[in-house]
């Protein structure tokens, strides 16, 4: 087995536990089936391209992006735990390079992101079934979003993990950042109709682009704007990945 595969195997073993898996499923179910239908009395339909989406369908597709982001927290947690519990140094004194370690983390969050997206797509399928516009680009768009989003948010979590030593600081900053990303985005509600400053803030948030790309894939609305969003998402993911890699490379023992 290649060193990266061995490290991915180890990463998945230490980060996936029954509680994590349960939370990854139950949390979106609550949002999609409880919040989604409860809010229908307030938001009946959301205009999306040429069609109007039922709110639960809109929310379920947003939850795919939200869950991808949430699951990539794992990347930061792996790095932070490895540093705290001495495993980073131990791994680096074994048959691995720093590049192996970094790439294994990216692969881990890529896998978790993809599995997470598939899981929510399956769970949410009954609610967006009516509006689904399956085409040749549906799967590639979701896979692109899952991988790019995982790299982006995984790199961000890794940057925070390399910079912070205290568990309180790490948790507070990570949770605050991810809370901001979750709620100042189009994952839960549409940008149209929101106050202008909030609308601007939505588009400063990569989760908005991630969710827009997933919706475009599921509901068949690949506009020029979505292509621009894909470009922006890829650029931000690349920049953050380079920063995370540099920080990890410089991490001292």
């Amino acid at each position, binding site marked *: 087995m290649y060193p990266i595969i061995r490290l991915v195997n180890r990463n998945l073993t230490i980060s996936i536990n029954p509680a994590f898996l349960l939370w990854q499923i139950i949390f979106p179910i609550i949002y999609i089936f409880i919040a989604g239908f409860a809010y229908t009395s307030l938001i009946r339909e959301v205009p999306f391209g040429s069609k109007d989406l039922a709110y639960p369908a809109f929310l379920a597709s947003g939850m795919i992006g939200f869950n991808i982001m949430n699951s990539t927290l794992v990347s930061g947690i792996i790095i932070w735990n490895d540093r705290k519990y001495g495993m980073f140094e131990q791994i680096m004194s074994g048959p691995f390079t720093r590049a192996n370690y970094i790439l294994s983390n990216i692969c881990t969050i890529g896998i978790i992101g993809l599995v997470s997206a598939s899981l929510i797509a399956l769970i949410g399928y009954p609610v967006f079934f009516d509006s689904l516009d399956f085409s040749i680009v549906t799967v590639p768009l979701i896979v692109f979003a899952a991988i790019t989003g995982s790299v982006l948010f995984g790199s961000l979590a890794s940057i925070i993990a390399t910079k912070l030593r205290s568990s309180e600081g790490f948790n507070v900053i990570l949770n605050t950042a991810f809370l901001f990303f979750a709620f100042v985005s189009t994952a839960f509600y549409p940008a149209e109709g929101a106050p202008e400053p909030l609308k601007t803030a939505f588009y400063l948030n990569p989760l908005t682009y991630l969710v827009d790309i997933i919706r475009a894939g599921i509901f068949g609305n690949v506009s020029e704007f979505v292509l621009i969003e894909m470009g922006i998402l890829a650029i931000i993911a690349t920049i953050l990945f380079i920063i995370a890699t540099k920080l990890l490379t410089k991490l001292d*023992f």
Partner: protein
Amino acid sequence: MSCIIINKLSKNYGHVQAVDDITMSVKSGQVFGFLGPNGAGKSTTIKLLTTLIQPSEGSLNILGIDAIKNPLQVRHKIGVVLQQPSYEPTLTVEKSLEKYGMMWNVPKNERKFRMEQLLKDFDLVDIRKKRNEDLSIGQRRRVQVAREFMHDMDLLFLDEPTVGLDPSARRKLLDYLRTKVNSGLTIFFTTHILTEAEYLCDEIAIIDKGKILAIDSPNALKNRFGKDKTIKIHLLKNHPEIAKLLTGIQDCKIDFQTGTSITIHSEQSEIVLMKILKILNDNSIEIDDLSAIPTNLEEIFLKMVEENVSNN
């Protein structure tokens, strides 16, 4: 044959010289002890030898490989138990061993076999299902050391491996290490506990302030640096007048805390002893106990470090 050849190795952090121009070699198939007080440069040296950090100057050859140019090649052939604990908190003991073997690409069947053997050898059978985060410090240390034997290696670095172990576990570990050395493994071992070094090591280097003060076998070090011998005489009754009687005899100390005892500490302790015995005999003072205390490594170590401090 030498498995570690260090030549003019230095490591500095800004103005701090952690390792200062070290030159030495370690023979294969032995336990090499690396002793020094806190902050002497032991852990930095281990980090250099295990290729975790790069030296500022000098060359380093490990197992015939240039460790500065090919660190990964070296890491494939060595095992490392670092001073700080390292574990995955949520894994059980057996899962830790199994996953560590997998990380080292040990075949599945072999992993299972080694895991069972190590669980027995390190008294971990009863706690095999316990998660690492629920273990005591000593248990965690045992798992950390045991884990390193999941993979094959030619050279093992142990940075204070017995920290947190009770005396029985400590002795068991030292004996286990000895059996591994007898079957061909070379061990580079740092410790603060000098009796351990004396018990286990074939050769010892003493380091202080980044410099090597001496390298030799424990016995040779004792012969070279332990010329002073200590003899203790305990008198049968309390004799306050003894201080006056022994005035003029150098290299002896009198202690009245537990009866009357005389301690001779001299390079010529036998001659001093003869003089004192004559005085005691002339004054009809009876002896309760007389014992010679062998020079131990701790005394030599302390003496060398103190001398190094005063020289600096």
